[in-house]
């Protein structure tokens, strides 16, 4: 098999897997945060702030993986 084709293949699968992980993480985070806000509407502001920080961290890790996929694809 052509190594370039393998690299594209790996990049596509890797990007997909990274997105699955990131989406699962942010989805769980948002679900829990909404549950928390529904139970304690007073703490909404603080929960929202903490949620954005955690979402940023998850997103950062996902981007690490995506950039590796991009490096594979655009080599």
């Amino acid at each position, binding site marked *: 098999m052509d190594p370039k084709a393998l690299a594209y293949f790996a990049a596509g699968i890797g990007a997909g897997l990274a997105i699955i992980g990131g989406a699962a993480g942010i989805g769980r985070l948002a679900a829990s945060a909404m549950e928390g806000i529904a139970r304690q509407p007073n703490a909404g502001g603080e929960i929202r*702030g903490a949620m*954005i*920080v955690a979402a*940023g*961290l998850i*997103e*950062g*890790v996902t*981007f*690490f993986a*995506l*950039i590796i996929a*991009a*490096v594979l*694809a*655009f*080599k």
Partner: protein
Amino acid sequence: MSPLPLLLQAAHGVTPPSGSPAPEAAPGGPGDIIMHHVMDQPFLGLPSKHMVFFVLAALIVIVMARLAIRSYRGGRVPRGLGAAVEALVVFIRDEVAEKSIGHGDGRRFVSLLCSFFFFILVAALLGLMPFSATSTGNLAVTMGLATVSFLAQQWAGISKYGLVHHFANLVPPGLPVWLLPIMIPIEILSMFTKPFALMIRLFANMLAGHMVITTLLLLIPLLAQLHWVGGVLMSPVSIALGLFIMLLEVLVAFIQAYIFTLLTAIFIGMYAHPVH
């Protein structure tokens, strides 16, 4: 890592089924015109377009800050620009700096955090203008920002505790001795991964939106190559989706400026108030 050749190839030549090799990207095609938004390139005789818009963003921030300060002259209540800037600065001071770093130490870093916030915001919004470029979509620019953030984090610890005590603070006291060989490398590593993550996050976010818009617009020449009707049918769809992503980009500009500022503040707070 250059996405240009691949996308240009997609724009110019879908490999025909006969199996002949894909033609090399010709300059001046639709791909070239669209890609000006994503890639760095010479601009007005200067070597780098990102550099131009980097300086432009910095100048806009400086002028904006000066104008905002001027609106306080004579004890007036600020209106217009001054009031808008004040709202954001007060938000960063009260909700970001003081909450994440602490009341005493937070004040010292407000100016730095405001600089980060306004620069990243202005650079991202500048990038949405026609014929412009997002300077924070360049790894070198975000690396510079992350380096400043890293130095500020270390300075927060060193200025408060002194060099030796600052590094001793990295490991929480009362830890079993046999954990030290694991904890010390991890803590030193995390010292560098924090700004590294800041760098990659900002870069990838700024690049990603433009890449998506580019790809959506490149669908038009791609389909037009199969048949011109395809291009005509695809145009409204591509433009509508591109407009949607463009609006999303405005939101992303604010969120990324906020996240970069907030995470810098939190990391500074970690070094200013270590576990003890």
